[in-house]
């Protein structure tokens, strides 16, 4: 029940962006797409906020972690950078 109430208060159920647009691919080599799914501090945005489906969130997490390893995305970003 709680979920129903919360959903109503948000107004709209979010849909997974990657399911909605098949042209949008998750690739660790594209930091610009991935950056959208991280906070300005560099943390990965959770599924409950991003609205991604489980499958795409898993791929996204993998891609972000790879991008971090090769210095395309920051592990921690400070407000200056």
């Amino acid at each position, binding site marked *: 029940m709680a979920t129903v109430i919360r959903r109503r208060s948000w107004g709209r159920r979010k849909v997974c962006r990657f399911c909605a647009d098949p042209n949008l691919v998750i690739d*660790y*080599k594209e*930091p*610009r797409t991935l950056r959208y799914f991280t906070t300005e501090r560099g943390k990965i945005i959770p599924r409950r906020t991003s609205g991604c489906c489980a499958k795409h969130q898993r791929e996204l997490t993998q891609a972000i972690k*790879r991008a*971090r*390893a*090769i*210095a*395309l*995305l*920051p*592990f*921690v*970003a400070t407000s200056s950078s």
Partner: protein
Amino acid sequence: MRHYETLFIISPEVSEDDIDRLLERYVGILEDRGGFVAKVDKWGRRRLAYEVKKFRKGYYVLFDYGAEPPAVAEMERNFKIDEKVIRYLTVKQDDQFDLEAAQAARQAAEEEAARKAEEEAARKAEAAAAAARESAESAQPAPEAAPAQEAAAESDQAAEQTQAQDQAPAEGQDQADKE
């Protein structure tokens, strides 16, 4: 043979020539061990998201290739030893590598590059010829028949220039994105 992809970062202090030599060496390591490098993609100097070995910038290169696991291990062993390579990441794309398709693709890409180079050379030669004609024109007054020809050459050149300008902002944008 498996399909791999390796993205690695070369120290920003390495010169272009040295980078080419270094890439050749690593391609050699793979191909000596039965691998096939389908693509070498030089991303160029980019800003790193964080400091790696005290560098804030790095030269990214992407290898797309098919190889056996020992070949990859050997390349990574060399990456570890090589001080010019500051970071690397290998990702397995697939358990199978379509060698024939990759060979065909590389051949097509090479032909395309050769064709482009030829076109570029032809265009440069034409521009040089036009410039030479122009300087001859200014040095001494041309005979009656020349002006029409000159005008044609000039309009050609103007068209080329607008084309070049069309391309220039796109490239600038690209550069800015990389930064």
